[in-house]
C-alpha cells in the first residue's frame, strides 16, 4: 500500500536525525480508527501518525473529527473500531503507562469555578503520577509562572477571562515535563500576544524534544509552528506528512526568471523536462526531475538565470483544496504517493 510506505518514509526521516535510534519512532499512531455515535460516524479510517519529536498540526473544518480523534488518542473515548498506540503502549491496556508522560488540553479548559487557579492546578497536580508529593507546590507555581497567571493565581476561576482560562488549561498540561503534549485549539480566546506566547511554548517544547500535537483551525498558526501536518475532513485524514513536503506536493513546479525563455524551454525539452513560458520566465514541471538538475541544465546551456524558486501553494490553498474538493477527488489527483491520501469517495460515504 503506497500510503503506508509514504508514512514510514516520513517517520524514518525524523528518527534518522535522532541521536539514539528509538524503538518507537512515533509518539502516537492510530490504525483504522472509527467512532460512531449513535448513527453518526464521527471518525472513520483514521490512520494517523505523530512522528516522535515532531510538532504535528491537525487541521480540519469544524466537525471534521479532530477532537474525537484526540479523545481516542488519550483513551478518553473508546473507539468503535481500530487501534491506538500511545508512546509505544496500546490503549486502553497501556493507558496507565503512557498517559503520565502525556500532557493534554482537550475541548477547552475544565476547572472548578469556585476554586482559585492555584487550587485547581493543585488538584490536577495531586493526580499526576510522576509528580512527587513534595514537588507539587513548586510544579504548580512554575506552571502558573510559565503561562503568565502568577498574579491571578489566587483569584477564583469563575472570574477568569476566556484567555486566562485557556492559559490555566495550558498550565495543567505542562505541570511536569512531558514526552508528548496534546493541545486542542490552544489559542482559542487568546489575544494576539497570548497566541504568540502559545507559539513560543510550543517552540520551547519542540526544542526540548517533546512531541506536540496541535489541533487548530487557524492555518497561519499551524504553518508557523508545525513541522508536520495532518488534514482531517469529514472524519478522515485526507493528507498527512511533513509540512514542507505537503506544500511541495501540491504544486510541483519551479519558477525560473530568465530573459532567454526560448533557449531555456528548448534545452529543457531536449532533456524531456516539461516546461512552459510564463510572463516572467518559465515554469518547469518537477514531476520527473529535481530543481538542481534543472538549474544545472540551464546553466550548462548558457541560459542567464536571475532567480529560481519553488512554486509553493500556501497552506491555506492546500487546505481549501483538500477540504472543499469535488466529490470525485479530481483536486487531489496531483498529490503524489509520498503522502498518505485517502480518496475523497471513501471519506464521504
Amino acid at each position, binding site marked *: 500500500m503506497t500510503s503506508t510506505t509514504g508514512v514510514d518514509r516520513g517517520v524514518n526521516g525524523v528518527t534518522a536525525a*535522532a541521536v*539514539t535510534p*528509538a*524503538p*518507537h519512532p512515533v509518539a502516537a499512531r492510530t490504525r483504522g480508527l472509527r467512532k460512531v455515535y449513535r448513527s453518526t460516524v464521527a471518525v472513520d479510517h483514521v490512520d494517523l501518525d505523530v512522528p*516522535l519529536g515532531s510538532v504535528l498540526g491537525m487541521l480540519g473544518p469544524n466537525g471534521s473529527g479532530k477532537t474525537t480523534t484526540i*479523545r481516542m488518542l*488519550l*483513551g*478518553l*473515548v*473508546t473507539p468503535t473500531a481500530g487501534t491506538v498506540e500511545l508512546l*509505544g503502549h496500546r490503549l486502553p491496556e497501556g*493507558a*496507565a*503507562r503512557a*498517559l*503520565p*508522560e*502525556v500532557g*493534554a488540553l*482537550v*475541548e*477547552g*479548559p*475544565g*476547572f*472548578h*469555578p*469556585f*476554586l482559585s487557579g492555584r*487550587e*485547581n492546578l*493543585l*488538584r*490536577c497536580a*495531586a*493526580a*499526576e*503520577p*510522576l*509528580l512527587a*508529593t513534595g514537588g507539587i507546590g513548586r510544579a504548580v507555581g512554575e506552571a502558573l509562572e510559565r503561562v503568565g497567571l502568577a498574579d491571578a493565581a489566587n483569584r477564583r476561576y469563575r472570574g477568569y477571562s476566556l484567555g486566562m482560562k485557556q492559559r490555566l488549561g495550558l498550565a*495543567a498540561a505542562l505541570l*511536569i*515535563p*512531558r*514526552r508528548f503534549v496534546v493541545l486542542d485549539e490552544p489559542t482559542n480566546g487568546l489575544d494576539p500576544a497570548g497566541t504568540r506566547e502559545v507559539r513560543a511554548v510550543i517552540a520551547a517544547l519542540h526544542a*526540548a*524534544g*517533546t512531541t506536540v500535537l496541535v489541533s487548530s483551525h487557524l492555518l497561519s498558526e499551524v504553518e508557523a509552528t508545525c513541522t508536520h501536518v495532518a488534514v482531517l475532513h469529514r472524519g478522515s485524514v485526507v493528507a498527512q506528512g511533513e509540512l514542507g513536503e505537503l506544500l511541495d506536493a501540491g504544486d510541483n513546479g519551479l519558477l525560473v526568471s530568465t530573459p532567454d525563455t526560448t533557449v531555456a524551454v528548448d534545452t529543457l525539452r531536449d532533456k524531456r523536462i516539461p516546461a512552459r513560458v510564463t510572463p516572467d520566465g518559465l515554469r518547469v514541471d518537477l514531476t520527473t526531475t529535481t530543481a538542481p538538475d534543472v538549474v544545472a541544465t540551464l546553466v550548462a546551456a548558457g541560459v542567464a538565470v536571475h532567480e529560481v524558486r519553488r512554486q509553493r501553494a500556501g497552506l491555506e490553498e492546500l487546505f481549501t483544496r483538500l477540504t472543499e474538493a469535488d466529490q470525485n477527488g479530481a483536486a487531489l489527483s496531483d498529490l503524489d504517493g509520498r503522502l498518505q491520501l485517502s480518496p475523497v469517495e471513501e471519506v464521504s460515504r
Partner: protein
Amino acid sequence: MTTLTVSGQVSAPVARTHAPIGRLLRSELRLVLRRPRTLIALGLLVLVPVLAGIGIALAADGTLEPPPGAEGPGAIAAILSENGLVLPIFVLTISLQMLLPMVGAMWAADALAGESSVGSLRNLLVAPVGRARLLGVKAFGVATAVVIGVGLMTASGVISGLVLLGGNSMITISGTTLSFWPALGRILLTALLVTVQVLAVAAVALAISSVTEHPLIVMAVSLGGIIVFTVLNAIPALSWLHPLLITDSWQAMIDVMRDPIPTDALVEGVLRAGCYLAIGGSLALARMLTRDG
C-alpha cells in the same frame, strides 16, 4: 527530568502509573469541603435540629397553641418536653424521609456529573487516574460528606435537645426510661443506621451520576425515585413490592426508640441498604469503565 527523550523502555525503570491514593483522597476531600453547596448543605443539617428544638420548646410552653384535637406538634411536643435526648432521633428519622437522601444525592451528583459538566473529569482521566480508582475516590468523597452531615446533625440535635428541651435521660416509646449514656448509645445507633440508608441512596445516585453530565438529572431521578417509592409503599395492595423498596426500611427506624429494641426490621433495613449499595456501586463501576470521558 527536564529532557525526557526517548530511551529504550525495556531497560527503563518502572515509572509510577498512578498517584498515591492518600494524595487523591485528600485532594477530593478538599474539593468536596470547599464547594459552597456542601457548606450550605452542612449548615442546613446543623440548623434543622435547632429549629425543630425551638419550635417544640415554644409549643411545649403553650406559646404555640395546637389546634384542638390535632395530634400534630402538640403531641410530639408532649413526648419531647423534658425529654431532649429524643430530639436527635426525632430529627434524624424525619430527615431520613427526604432531606438527608436529597443532600446525599446532591453530593453524588456533584461527584461525577458535576465534575463532568465543568470538564474537570477529563483532567483526572488523562492524568491518569484509573477509572475504577476514580470511582473509589469519588465514592469516598460522597461517603465522607454523608458521614459528616449525619454526624453534624446528630451533634446539633443532642445539644439543641439538651439546651432547649432539657432532661438528661430518655423516655422510650415503650415507656421505660434510659439514663444518659444508654440514651446516647441509642442516638449513635440511630445515626449509624440513618447513615447506612443515606449511603445506599447516594450509591444509586452515584450510578446515575456516572451516566449523565447534568447534575440536575441526578437530583431529579433520585428525588423522583424516593417520592415514587414512598407512594408505592403507602399502597397496601402492592405489599408484595414493599420488601424491594428502600423507603420501606425508613418507616421502621422509630424501632430504636422501643425498649428492648426489636431488631428484625432494623437488620432487614441494613441488609436492604446493603443491596442498594452493591447494586448502585456495581452499576456505577460498570458505567465508569466504559463511559466516554
